[in-house]
């Protein structure tokens, strides 16, 4: 989906304004937001790809007008409603009003730190040999799917070089929509700056993306 999140190459966002000695959190609600996103995710009803898909579905005016933790919370409210854990009545009341779906699990305090240290790998064994080899020239497909994808617009249709061939990884395009992990081979693809941005592009620049096999075609 060509959503507001895909900002690579955009120019109107102004200065970066790095904050010296920035704290990890700027308000207590940000701490609760981080913990809510992780503990609600631990219920096992959705995956990281569906979380991203949901945040990207926010209206551009909302997405660009929100801090990142606000985007997370707005996305979480949508996920919780989609999966039957929270209703509009609950949110309106600010209290539990309606019954909820049963979660697969509830993360307990003692499980939290070990779960963070474990993480959740998303590489998967696949038997198919890689379609592309390191050093081979490939083109990122010119595609504009309605569904979630991780091929940024600035790379679509561009010629690049396979720099690394990785394991199979869960395919976000289907996994984000509850249509299965469908693991595919992942590649690191390097693009010359001028291929991406034209003659005025920085001649010293190379940009790489990590792309699933179905994002690529032979050059």
């Amino acid at each position, binding site marked *: 989906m060509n959503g507001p999140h*895909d*900002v*690579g*190459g*955009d*120019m109107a*966002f*102004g200065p*970066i304004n*790095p*904050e010296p000695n*920035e704290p*990890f*959190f*700027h*308000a207590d*609600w940000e*701490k*609760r*937001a981080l*913990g*809510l996103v992780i*503990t*609600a995710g*631990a*219920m096992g009803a959705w995956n990281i790809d569906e979380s991203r898909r949901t*945040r990207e579905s926010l209206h551009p005016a909302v997405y660009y007008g929100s*801090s990142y*933790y*606000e985007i997370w*919370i707005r996305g979480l409210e949508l996920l*919780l409603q989609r999966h039957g*854990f*929270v209703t509009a009545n609950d*949110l309106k009341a600010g*209290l*539990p009003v309606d019954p*909820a779906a049963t979660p697969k699990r*509830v*993360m*307990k*305090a*003692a499980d*939290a730190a070990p779960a*963070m*240290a*474990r*993480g*959740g790998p*998303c*590489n998967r064994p696949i038997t198919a040999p890689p379609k592309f080899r390191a050093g081979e020239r490939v083109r990122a497909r010119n595609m504009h799917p309605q569904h979630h994808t991780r*091929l*940024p617009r*600035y790379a679509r249709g561009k010629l690049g070089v396979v720099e690394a061939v990785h394991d199979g990884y869960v395919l976000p395009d289907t996994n984000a929509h509850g249509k299965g992990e469908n693991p595919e081979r992942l590649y690191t693809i390097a693009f010359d700056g001028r291929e991406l941005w034209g003659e005025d592009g*920085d001649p*010293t*620049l190379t940009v*790489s993306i*990590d*792309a699933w096999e179905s994002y690529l075609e032979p050059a």
Partner: protein
Amino acid sequence: MAHDHHDHDDDHHDNELDPMTARVRALETILAGKGLIDPAAIDAIVDVYENKVGPRNGAQVVAEAWSNPEFADWLKRDATAAIASLGFTGRQGEHMHAVFNTAETHNLVVCTLCSCYPWSVLGLPPVWYKSPPYRSRAVIDPRGVLAEFGMTLPGDTKIRVWDSTAELRYLVVPMRPAGAEGLSKNQLADLVTRDSMIGTGLPKAPAP
């Protein structure tokens, strides 16, 4: 900056809360009330990312790479395993890649599509890393971006930008600064800034 001046359990002041504090507190109340989340688990997660996991982890990885060529080689070949050997594993660090700055090439890491960042070695990302100004310009105007961080690279230095579009997470290993010979690993780690491991900065110079 939206500071929450209210104590977390101070519920009778709810109608004075700023909108996000009220919104998040309501959501926590709903989920906890339904038994879907345990607020103590949130406390534990916040403790991990406020007090335990942060850029000092990555600084130790870099200091080890600077002082141990075998480790540097391992880090180049299998960063996830090499980093795990120092005790740093987990969420948003499951699939690590270390990219090494050289005299010819400077590396810069971004996630144009969201906020992908190697939590296990750098902790939670700063606001600017997650925000559109950095995400949009790092891939098209990296020299302009670096200038905003007070960094100017020689005109012929190659710039390699890594857009974290999948689940691989990138750690920049900056060049060891001149004059750092004879420093201990802890002293070396003190030179390694968070930004130098993203590519928006360089390590500190050792005290003369």
